[in-house]
């Protein structure tokens, strides 16, 4: 059998088995809208941990991080810092979001805006922004899948064909079973990812240099400035690092799909425990970086850094093992993609289409519309994946710049009673406009600072200023008005 056939068969076999397991697990429950989107709020610590880990360790972590380690060097460290700090930050507001979510029956991020600011228009705007910035994240997963199949087929299958096949499978899988299937398939994916990270993260430096320390020594001798900031770039220095780490760690749970995953937890203590233990999951990331750093001197000169990990694996191991790594990579693209599609479809159907266009719809009709949207959203991302080319990390940073603009509305919504609907609305629109302007005119980083972070600062200032200039509103989240009036905690 030729090499590409072996590698591709292994990938396809593992993906197929995982999908069947996922569908079987999901199929045992009757699906209504709440079951389909938040799994009936029944997940304990382990499943929430796996679900969140499954969403986080995407093809971005697998191919994008190693790709940046390869092509950018030092600035890539931001990834390890922000993942860890995102969990730290979550400790201070996710349990609170769960509490109000349960009290008001929230299923999506826009529900939060609807209930807190008593405005379906603000919720509709939020859902539209959420869906728009999910697209680059979804595009990232598609591009990653395309790269995997392209490398594993030794160039025989085109990236476009690969994307079409894989995403047909993801859409089918989301269609049938919803969030529960995704949680179970995540289990398989996480084990594969852990195995892959340890095996190649330690194995490859040993194979070529006799150890991790030896690999770094050789790299520092050959490229003395690659490992510190700004590395191989001109603009990603320390101010870029600080602003990017802040933007992405603050923005992490502003992703509509991660925000709504909060609602699947059984209780808010699950989320607190999660915030404590999740940073440990980041420990696989350095291993992925080691692969990227090893590849610099072993497979130099790749035009696209995102292909570094798979190219060095293909060169170093037998084809069936390339298949195993490829399958781990494929699942790290498909699981998050499924969740992203699910979140975007639910958001659009429930918080935009129903309130704005067809208010008479029943929950069942919304669920049916959401399923149609699964196909539509996948096709839009597929279109962008095929017709635009950028690195995986850049796609993710663009998404972050957008979704982090939700932060003032969420944080003030929880903790500042004086915040008003016009304040949040103006801040959000200003923030998004600043991001769009700076990114489209290619001014990112903006004076050495991440453009998304700059926009976030503007957003905060505008939200506060406009809130103070507008009339105070009733805070529906306040469960003890008398106590708050006295100004105590």
């Amino acid at each position, binding site marked *: 059998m030729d090499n590409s056939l072996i590698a591709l068969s292994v990938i396809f076999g593992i993906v197929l088995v995982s999908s069947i397991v996922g569908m079987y697990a999901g199929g045992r429950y009757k699906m209504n809208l709440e079951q389909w989107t938040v799994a009936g709020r029944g997940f304990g610590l382990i499943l929430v941990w796996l679900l969140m880990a499954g969403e986080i360790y995407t093809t971005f972590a697998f191919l994008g991080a190693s790709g940046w380690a390869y092509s950018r060097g*030092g600035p890539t*460290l931001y990834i*390890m*810092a922000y993942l*860890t*700090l995102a*969990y*730290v*930050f979550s*400790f*201070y507001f996710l*349990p*609170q979001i769960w*509490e*109000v979510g349960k009290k008001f029956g929230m299923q999506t991020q826009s529900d939060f805006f609807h209930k807190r600011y008593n405005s379906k228009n603000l919720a509709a705007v939020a859902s539209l922004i959420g869906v728009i910035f999910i697209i680059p994240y979804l595009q990232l997963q598609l591009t990653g899948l395309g790269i995997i199949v392209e490398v594993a087929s030794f160039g025989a299958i085109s990236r476009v064909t690969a994307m079409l096949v894989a995403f047909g499978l993801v859409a089918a899988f989301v269609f049938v079973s919803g969030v529960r299937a995704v949680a179970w398939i995540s289990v398989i994916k996480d084990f594969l990812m852990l195995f892959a990270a340890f095996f190649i993260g330690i194995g490859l430096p040993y194979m070529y240099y006799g*150890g*991790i*320390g*030896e690999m*770094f*020594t050789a790299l*520092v001798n050959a490229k*003395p400035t690659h*490992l*510190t*900031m700004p590395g191989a770039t001109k603009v990603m220095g*320390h101010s870029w*690092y*600080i602003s990017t*780490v*802040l933007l992405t*760690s603050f923005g992490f749970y502003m992703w509509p799909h991660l925000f709504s995953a909060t609602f699947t937890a059984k209780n*808010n*203590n699950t989320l*607190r*425990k999660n*915030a*404590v*233990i999740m*940073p*440990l999951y*980041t*420990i696989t990331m*350095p291993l992925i*970086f080691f692969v990227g750093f090893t590849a610099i001197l072993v497979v130099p000169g790749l035009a696209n850094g995102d292909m570094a990990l798979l190219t060095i694996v293909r060169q170093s191991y037998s084809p069936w093992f390339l298949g195993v790594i490829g399958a781990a990579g494929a699942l790290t693209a498909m699981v998050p993609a499924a969740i992203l599609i699910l979140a975007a479809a639910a958001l659009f159907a429930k918080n935009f289409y129903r309130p704005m266009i067809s208010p008479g719809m029943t929950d069942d009709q919304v669920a049916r519309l959401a399923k149609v949207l699964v196909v539509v959203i996948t096709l839009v991302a597929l279109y962008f994946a095929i017709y635009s080319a950028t690195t995986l990390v850049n796609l993710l940073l663009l998404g972050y710049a957008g979704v982090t603009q939700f932060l003032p509305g969420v944080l003030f919504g*929880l*903790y500042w009673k004086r915040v008003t609907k016009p304040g949040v609305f103006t801040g959000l629109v200003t923030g998004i406009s600043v991001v769009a302007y700076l990114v489209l005119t290619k001014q990112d980083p903006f004076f050495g600072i991440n453009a998304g972070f700059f926009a976030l600062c503007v957003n905060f200032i505008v939200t506060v200023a406009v809130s103070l200039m507008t009339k105070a509103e009733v805070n529906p*989240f306040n*469960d003890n008005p008398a*106590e708050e009036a006295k100004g*105590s*905690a």
Partner: protein
Amino acid sequence: MHKPSLQSILIGLIPFVAMCFTVVLWDQVHPFVLGLPFNIFWIILWILITPIIMSFAYRSERARIDAQDSGMKGGA
């Protein structure tokens, strides 16, 4: 809704200072520690320390919330 206490927020600031704001101080290759360039060693070290630090924040929050929920209102 249970708002986080000032104490737990201050605990959470520690990893932010170590991994983010102080980057100028530790973003260097030398000295190598355990075979790793110093900046990479520093980040990995803090990935491991952070859960320990956050477990203190967890304990402080749990104790406070349990006290609140058992009827000692205003104790926050």
